[in-house]
């Protein structure tokens, strides 16, 4: 299909972009366009104005800020996947970015854009949840920090307000005893394509036991979400194979699983368990 007619603006600064956004209610931000353009062509979205932030300088860096990494709005998946900082300090995010789409999508699509898009089967959404990231949103009124746990509201719906631009993703650096991993089954089998089910796990081990953990699911429910069942079971355990299996068993506790062409409720609930086991296993190995 062809998109409806729209105005295109490509501001040179963030302030300019925020001003255009404020004065054009219903305008949409475009970073890589990998999801926005298909949505417009399918007329699932028909914004009157598209604001391309791709030419704004200074948004394409991954910075080490001591206790966290800051990932700018124009950092592409390929950059996230291959960054030494991200692979070292936020492994699950690097892995999720590496398993997103194909080469073209990773070269053009941004990690922040994927998070803002909030697809229910996206890979990086689970990673930012498990890593306990913070989203930094700006509007012409100011800057707001939104914890990942509050960011994903529903399918394709985030906590961003219409006049806000997600400018940065802050990911706490995994320190001593902390590690993370992301595993998935893709729609084309293996790890290819959107997640039929994907799990990101972050763990902290102190004195031989799991003192803290976050386990996030994607593809399973209506949005990326934490698995409180798995987290309850693994926190305080010794992180052994048996403890992981017990946590996996509770992966889909209290979660309403959505079926689609790639999986029934039963299958997806089962996959949630399998991939919680694999992600925790990888994080704890």
């Amino acid at each position: 299909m062809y998109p409806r007619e729209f105005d295109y603006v490509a501001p040179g600064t963030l302030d300019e972009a925020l001003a255009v956004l404020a004065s054009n209610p219903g305008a949409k931000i475009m970073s890589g366009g990998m999801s926005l353009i298909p949505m417009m062509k399918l007329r699932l979205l028909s914004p009157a104005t598209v604001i391309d932030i791709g030419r704004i300088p200074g948004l394409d860096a991954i910075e080490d800020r001591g206790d966290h990494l800051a990932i700018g709005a124009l950092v592409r998946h390929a950059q996230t996947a291959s960054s030494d900082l991200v692979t070292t300090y936020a492994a699950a995010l690097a892995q999720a970015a590496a398993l997103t789409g194909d080469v073209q999508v990773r070269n053009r699509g941004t990690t922040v854009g994927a998070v803002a898009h909030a697809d229910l089967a996206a890979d990086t959404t689970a990673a930012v949840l498990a890593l306990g990231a913070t989203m930094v949103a700006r509007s012409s009124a100011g800057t707001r920090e939104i914890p990942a746990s509050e960011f994903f509201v529903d399918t394709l719906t985030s906590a961003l307000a219409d006049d806000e631009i997600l400018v940065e993703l802050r990911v706490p650096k995994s320190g001593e005893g902390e590690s993370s991993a992301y595993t998935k089954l893709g729609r084309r089998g293996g790890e290819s394509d959107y997640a039929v089910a994907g799990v990101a796990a972050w763990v902290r081990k102190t004195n031989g036991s799991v003192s803290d953990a976050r386990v996030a699911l994607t593809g399973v429910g209506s949005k990326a979400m934490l698995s409180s069942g798995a987290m309850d079971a693994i926190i305080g355990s010794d992180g052994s194979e048996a403890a992981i299996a017990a946590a996996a068993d509770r992966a889909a506790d209290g979660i309403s699983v959505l079926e689609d062409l790639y999986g029934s409720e039963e299958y997806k609930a089962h996959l949630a368990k399998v991939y919680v086991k694999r992600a925790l296993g990888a994080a704890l190995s």
Partner: protein
Amino acid sequence: MVNQRLIPTAIEPRRVLAEWEAGYQTLRMHTTSQMPHAVAGALAMALGLPSTSVRVIAPEVGGGFGAKLNVYSDEILVGWAARQLERPVRWTETRREAATSTIQGRGWIGTATIVGTRDGEILGYEFDGLADMGAYTQNFTAAIPFLGLFVASGQYKMPTYWKIDCVATNTTTTDAYRGAGRPEAMYYIERIMDMYAREIGMDPADVRRKNFIPAEEFPVAMSPVGFAMDTGDYAMNLDALLETGAYDEMKAARDSARAEGRNVGIGLSTYVEVCGFAPAGLADLGFSWSAYGLPSAFNGNGLVRVNADATVTVTIGTGPSGQGHQTTWAQIVADRLGIPVDDIVVKHGDTGDSPMGIGTFGSRSAAVDGSAAYEAADRVRLKAAKLAAHLLEASEDDIVFADGAAHVAGSPESSVPWSEIAMVAYQPQKAPEGTDPGLESEVVFSPANATWPFGSHLAMVEVDAETGNVEILRYVAMDDCGNVINPMIVDGQVHGGLVQGIGQALFEEAIYDENGNLLTGSMVDYPIPTAGDVPMFELHRTTTPTDINPLGVKGIGEAGTIGSAQTIVNAVVDAVASYGVTHIDMPLRPRRVWEAMNAASGNGRA
């Protein structure tokens, strides 16, 4: 067993550009067609124009696979609009339109039965099927099951009863999609053959070999379903596959993987293909473009001209949709004339250049159009030999062509370059008396039969016990398409065919809701394999030339799809047979495989 509906997904969607050239009173159309002459014929009829007022050009088309082997109403409408408006009019299909209004493929449901003895002797094969035609019949719609019938008994000598009902449904029309009826037919035989082997506890290779049509029976006057077949040596080909693929080692590797609890399986399939369409006799059965005002027989047309500067123009009325026909055709002519391939230009797919051209389909472009080019080049060569003999004062029987010149056999110092021969050809006063001027020939090649390529494929897969995910560990193909003109092009065809067959086996399915709405109309919902989703293929060949055409070539465009889907399914079923699984319908997405494993065993091994 279901052979599901597929959406042919060419990289380039269909597109049409038409312009009424008032000065020439000609409608000129560029269209992504596999049959430009038929489009021209249909346009002339629909718009009431003489054929001289319609020119259709199908340039380098970005993939066809049978889906562009139709005259679509869009083409007629764009032509009509351009004529009415006297303005260029362009139409480009979107992906969603491609999914709903370009033809689809496959869509069969069938029951296959083998009756045989416990020691592997097949007494009879029966197939009872339903083929989904969609809402309207298009170019080949009803002929697709018929193409399946051609190969309905596969490589086997067995009494065959084959019945298929064609049903209309309120969905998109089905028509030719790479293989067109033959992948479907081969799927059913080769699945049931595996089930039979398992039932009687015999190696799948041995059961097949035991029932082959023996090599000494070729040429076959009448196959079990009534067709004459050119050449074949099925046992030789299968043995080559098993040896090259190291079948015994593969089985040992499978068994030791199983001992470690891994679900590894091996799948085998043989196939016979029928292509190089078509013998003129088929026109009587309705295989023709006569509805578009074209000659009724599917001949090949080749026009070869050596120009005055010793370059060569080869004009063929059909053309490639990515296969590399220009290269193959140029090689045929270069080889025949001894003129470097770089000096040969192939003009194709333009009804303004070429007197006639049937189309690119049924793996016919080498066997039929290539043979026409070969014979045309041969006639040019004979004429050039006369001229060279005159110039060299030698006997024309002693003239040989190589390296851009004519030589006298045995005395290499005595030679004359093609450029000189051509100059003479275009100046009658310098030629021997009675010589027609010019150095060109046009041949219409009418094959006596179709050609019957064959082959056998072997795959090894692993199924993830927890998720049902299928990973292809190895894929070995042993194809036999007769003589090979360009090995790289042949390999490329097999590659693409395998990927599409694997796409059917593992990923693709057109799904409609009960009201006939397509649920898989975007590529998010209709996954096709990419390079990253398939293994490195191990491609090999045996060579059994045909005697149907002077080149000894059969055809390779569709063999990959015809041999592969069931090879994968056979391997997956073998991998999970220990759960009690006997069959899983395609596509074998992880969910389906997992569900089959569960249903058969409650997810414990039987």
